[in-house]
């Protein structure tokens, strides 16, 4: 079962990767507009990715509790199923 923090890390990774893609495109494609592509495309996605990553760090307590609840619920369901005749 995937943990909440793993999902957030994936999302952060995807956002940063998209931002890096925009940055590489803006460096190879050189009309004056490429600077706006860098700021809006790359800057926005990379900053969002960093924020999602930082949020995943500070929300570890909440996600650990959510993961524990989900694991406990799964265990109860498994025990309930095993006790049925």
């Amino acid at each position, binding site marked *: 079962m995937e943990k909440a923090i793993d999902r957030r890390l994936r999302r952060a990774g995807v956002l940063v990767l998209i931002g890096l893609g925009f940055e590489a495109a803006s*460096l190879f494609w050189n009309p004056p507009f490429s600077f706006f592509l860098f700021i809006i495309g*790359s800057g926005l996605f990379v900053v969002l990715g960093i924020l999602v990553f930082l949020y995943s760090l500070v929300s570890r307590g909440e996600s650990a509790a959510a993961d524990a609840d989900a694991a406990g619920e799964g265990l109860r369901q498994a025990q309930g199923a095993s006790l049925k005749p």
Partner: protein
Amino acid sequence: MIGPLSLLIAMIAVAAVLCLLLIFRPAITVSRGGKMLAFVSLFVFPVLCLTMGASEHMEYSKSTAFCLKCHVMEDYGKSLHIDDASFLPAAHYQNNRVPRGQACYTCHTDYTMFGTMSAKLRGLKHVYVQTLGKIPDKLALYTPYNNRECLHCHGGARSFEEGAIHNLEPDRIAKIKSNELSCLSSGCHESVHNIAGLKEAKFWEEVKSNGEGN
């Protein structure tokens, strides 16, 4: 020698690989080393890439090639090659009095505390107008050209301080230095880009140099 652009591309590639690793294997962050890897991949490298990318774009925006990428600047680029020493931009460009790679920026930036920043902001506005706005029929400077930009290089130079015309009147030099009398005044250095006269002008063919005396 690896240039800054090559280094930046390499950094982006490394950052992308690290991001892919975290996307496909987020569970590696369970260990201490994995946590450090996540921090480097999702914070340190992206911040470095953004900073270096911004610097690279800033440097490129100073180049003559960047300025001349807009169609509206085509005639101004041609005026740098006018074969007439009385035309200021042409004389400066052809004799390497300004770096050819940053010819436009050298003269059209204010040499004050926020000079480079205000030049950049004006440039952003120009890109916006070029892309989304309406380009005016006649281009003009926002404010009259300040002598400060000329005196940044020519101030203190013997040819300026001891020039016969500059010392024709006792207070002429003082008026020039205080911007009371423009360097571009009629009868002085008034020939600038001369866009209107380009059709009749003769042009100098630029000799490409590799910067090493060849």
